[in-house]
């Protein structure tokens, strides 16, 4: 089953004459770990926003989980994101006024589906944090007191809770040093594999590519460039 199917996807900013993104075809199967590499300006951000349902394509089709996504209302797209996607940002992923555990359980408050899937939400969050090797003493501390590496692991736990089908990671390792980075990717992979989540990992950093079975160069698939 393909989790993501793009077909003649085009996007241009309003009032502009030229597409900034044109992807004739892209398929990502369930459970795949895909590394999407692109320099800044290659349409990375736009593609992510299209996949996350923040933007709608100017033309073409997006199918996610075999559902047509490009026609969906913004309400539906928001719902879909809440239910089926975990998002990890580059940095500052966490709400500073919540504890680590509270940050992790956040998606379950906005998605009934993920709440149901996680069972005991609190317990499930603790388990995830455990697996991601976050020290027990840090669970209830304010996230601002955590190191960047610890914060990113909390963000991973939040993306994974409730077993969403798609994990979108937008340069999540750029603030980490090499050792931490490799451990981070390892942990992300093992947890994602355990719950069969598909990972779409976006970065400009070619060193990360070696971890991934599939690497897509955005400059090769984006015909608008």
């Amino acid at each position, binding site marked *: 089953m393909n989790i993501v199917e793009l077909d003649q996807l085009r996007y241009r900013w309003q009032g502009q004459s030229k597409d900034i993104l044109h992807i004739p075809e892209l398929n990502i199967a369930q459970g795949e770990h895909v590394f999407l590499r692109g320099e800044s300006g290659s349409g990375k951000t736009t593609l992510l926003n299209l996949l996350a349902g923040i933007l709608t394509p100017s033309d073409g089709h997006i199918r996610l989980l075999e559902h047509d996504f490009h026609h969906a209302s913004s309400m539906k797209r928001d719902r879909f994101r809440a239910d089926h996607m975990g998002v990890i940002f580059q940095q500052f992923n966490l709400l500073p*006024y919540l504890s680590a555990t509270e940050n992790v359980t956040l998606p379950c408050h906005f998605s009934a589906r993920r709440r149901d899937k996680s069972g005991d939400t609190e317990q499930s969050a603790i388990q995830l944090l455990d697996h991601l090797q976050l020290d027990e003493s840090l669970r209830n501390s304010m996230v601002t007191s955590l190191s960047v590496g610890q914060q990113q692991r909390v963000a991973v736990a939040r993306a994974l809770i409730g077993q969403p089908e798609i994990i979108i990671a937008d340069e999540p390792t750029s603030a980490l040093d090499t050792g931490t980075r490799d451990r981070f990717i390892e942990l992300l992979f093992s947890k994602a594999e355990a719950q069969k989540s598909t990972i779409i990992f976006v970065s400009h950093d070619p060193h990360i590519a070696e971890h991934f079975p599939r690497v897509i160069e955005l400059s090769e698939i984006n015909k608008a460039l």
Partner: protein
Amino acid sequence: MILLKLTWRSLWNRRISVILTLISIAISVSLLLGVEYIRKEAKSSFLSTISGTDLVVGARSGPVQLLLYSVFRIGNATNNIGWDTYQTIADNKRVDWTITLSLGDSHLGYRVLGTNQDYFKHYRYADKRLLAFEHGKPFGSVYEAVLGSEVAKTLGYTLDRKITLSHGAGATSFSEHKNKPFTVVGILKPTGTPIDRTVHVTLEGIEAIHIDWQAGAPVAGFEISAEKAAKMNLQPEVITAFLVGLKSRSATFRLQREINDYRQEPLLAVVPGVALSELWQSIGQFEVVLRIITIFVLVAGLLGMLTTLLSTLNERRREMAILRAVGAYPWQIFLLFLLEAFLIAVLGCLLGCLMVFIGVLLAQPWVTAEYGLHLRTWLPGWDDAKLIVLITIAAVIFSTLPALIAYRRTLQDGLTVKI
């Protein structure tokens, strides 16, 4: 529920600026409620300057003028009433009691009121309260005086003090009744009415000090000593005004009409309550001014809240993007801001109420001691509740601006906010 929790935690996270905003709103709210309270208290205290009196009778002039000089000791009577006219009305079978008022002299700027014993028996103010003595007793003989509380306090007078009266109302009068001093025999408790600023003497005393006077000046070489004067016939020929208490209040308007139609002398009788309301309306313009000022204060407080909300928008951009990423709808982001304003407004109002309550509680004993005014304890009434609801609604309406900005930004920014 999660939105409420997020709002609460987010507010707590920014507590210093939030608390300052809260205080500024609380101050505006307490000002608004406090001014409303003072307005009501001032009105009720004003309207209770005189009570239990059914009619005030004086020479024909305006009702407000009559009230001003007879009750408030402001201004002067244009004319006097003849003693026989007074007698005729006092003897009317419907009349229960009368209090004669004779004005025109002063002591160091305080008005002197010549009156009778009935003054201490029947004069009532506020909630039908009788005059009470702090020290001493009512006057019994010609040269005795009873002081209002403020007179005694300001001038430092105690019982048995000798005072002399001056002719006319000014603080520095050239013609003093030096040869006939009065002895202070009583000092009244504070009433919160013009009585506190009045020196009370007998009607006969007023007559005695003027017995050797003609046309407002002492007659040279025709001086009569105090002792001698006291033994003379001291029944006055004229008085300034008098207060009437009726056996039955239902007769008020009939007697009022009779007095106003009195043939022998042009008289005016007014019902104090009616005239007081009339007077209050003519001087009540300050109410409007107070209200306008407090509304501006409130708007300033709300603008302060708006400024704080707007200034946090940028630093909270990331917060909003995170919430969107974990599945919050844009309208939930919008609601987050409204909730925040709502919480600040409600807490601000509660704090404001508390401030007024404690303020009044602290002021009560002092105001009672100093001015004789009995402040009622402040409790939020229906009007205050309406005001609080209005303030909260206004705050929420104000907050739609930052909410809208955040809403639009969260649609534009999506999941990728540049820091």
